[in-house]
């Protein structure tokens, strides 16, 4: 079982509202424990790929195999199982801002609980201990009882990471996790993600706008243009020409060309 890929896209296509073609014939697979970045211009379909995995959107064609199950045609119960096992991190953190940090972290357990105990927010001692452990690892111990709207962007994103670790996921999907952060908070976040990937063996699939960051952190990069994969390989063979092709631009047109 451990040899089989944890995630496999087979000829997946997605068309929004029967008009907008977001993905066409996308195929790739992720091995357990990989750290993969997806790069591509705005509107190329990066977010759509991630959302097809946890079924926030439904693929129109093709099949997606997660952990041995075809989830592209999963029913409600199977979707619940998939979501339980995949964490998601958002550009805008998507926390419940009026609740405390610790409550937001514990939200990661909701999928594992009965509806009623989730509704009233009844968590076990073990879950609470684990939540504090994770907060400590992410350097948020002092913030545990603060309301989330009192935190900085970098801290909020760490809460987002804590919430997804709390799920004990097999896979974490990150949709532009550092797009709203300054360079130093960005580094903190990327280091944490990289660390989680290595120490907990959680597979990470990350959408990035910063090519340099993708080159530095990931061992594999997927380049996508207008819904099609144009590059899939290690950072070493991602040449400047391929980068221009991914972003469909000429020399001197990219911000990375400056300096």
């Amino acid at each position: 079982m451990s040899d089989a890929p944890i995630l496999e896209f087979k000829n997946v296509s997605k068309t929004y509202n029967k008009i907008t073609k977001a993905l066409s014939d996308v195929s790739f697979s992720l091995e357990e424990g990989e750290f993969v970045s997806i790069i591509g211009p705005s509107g190329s379909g990066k977010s759509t790929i991630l959302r097809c995995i946890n079924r926030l959107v439904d693929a129109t064609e093709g099949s997606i195999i997660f952990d041995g199950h075809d989830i592209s045609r999963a029913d409600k119960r199977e979707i619940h199982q998939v979501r339980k096992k995949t964490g998601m991190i958002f550009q805008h953190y998507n926390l419940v801002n009026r609740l405390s940090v610790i409550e937001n972290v514990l939200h990661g357990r909701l999928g594992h609980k009965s509806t009623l105990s989730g509704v009233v927010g009844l968590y076990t001692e073990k879950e609470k201990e684990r939540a504090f452990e994770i907060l400590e690892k992410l350097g948020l111990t002092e913030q545990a009882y603060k309301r989330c709207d009192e935190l900085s962007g970098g801290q909020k994103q760490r809460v987002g990471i804590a919430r997804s670790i709390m799920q004990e996921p097999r896979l974490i999907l990150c949709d532009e996790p550092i797009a709203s952060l300054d360079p130093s908070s960005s580094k903190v976040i990327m280091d944490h993600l990289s660390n989680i990937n290595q120490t907990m063996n959680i597979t990470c699939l990350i959408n990035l706008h910063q090519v340099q960051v993708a080159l530095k952190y990931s061992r594999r990069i997927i380049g996508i243009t207008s819904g099609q994969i144009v590059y899939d390989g290690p950072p070493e063979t991602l040449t400047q020409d391929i980068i221009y092709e991914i972003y469909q631009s000429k020399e001197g047109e990219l911000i990375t060309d400056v300096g």
Partner: protein
Amino acid sequence: MLDKLFKISPRAWRAWLSIQSRLNKGNSQPEKPQQKEKQTSIFTKRKRVFTLVFIVVATLYLVSSAAAEFNLIDGLESFPKAFIWITTYLVPDEKSLSNLPAILAKLSETVFVAIAVTVCAALCAFFFSLLGTTTTKTNPWLARMVRVVAAFFRNVPDVVWAMLLLFSFGQNVLTGFFALFFATFGLLTRTFIETIDEVSADCVEALNATGATTLQIVFQGIIPSVLSVIISWILYMIETNIRASTLIGILTATGIGYQFDMYYKMMNYASASLVVIAIVVVVIAIEITSTRIRKVIM
């Protein structure tokens, strides 16, 4: 009649012409044609809209005041007279103070009905807004239905509701209750849907992604996010409904509105004025309280 109205218009017309010429001057200055073309067209467009709005407003005023036989100048002239009348007749005297307990009883009845109506309507509205929001993705068809129903209830004013309900319930507290209930329910449902869509869409998405069930999302995500805004709206609606129920009371012969109507028709102006003062005091007190509460929860 009409010529009196037109008396003011030459002056207005001259002012209008000067605004026009100033705007024209601004535009006719030589510019680099290509770059400024877009800007100029925006300015001309704005000028045109301005002119149109002015003409429409002026026409509306002239036509409607002629139709209603209303004259602004006469209206303004009657102000001092009205003021003198109020200060001479609408003053509570010693005899009217004996009516105070009855007035306060009626007033508290009106206030409590307004509060009860608002709370009931808010609870129903919150439930329906959960069905009407698109963030939880319950059922798009049901969501549209809820929005349509809410729009219907909202667009019929509470006084019209009261008139309609007079036929089925007669002059009764229930008539006023349901009239306010329907109007409040419609308004709050729409407001709550908008609040939920706006404030909690992001966290609903995130909780959805963790595998939380809809009920869990409602209690752990939506309610904490929107609670303070919703309470603030409920307080506002209580204030509004106290005012509205006073007026509706005249129609349905209940509460403080009817009390006022009675004193007024019996020409017991002193007691009527006591009613007015009592209402003003209560409305201000409630406004102050709700402002305090709002400050605490925000």
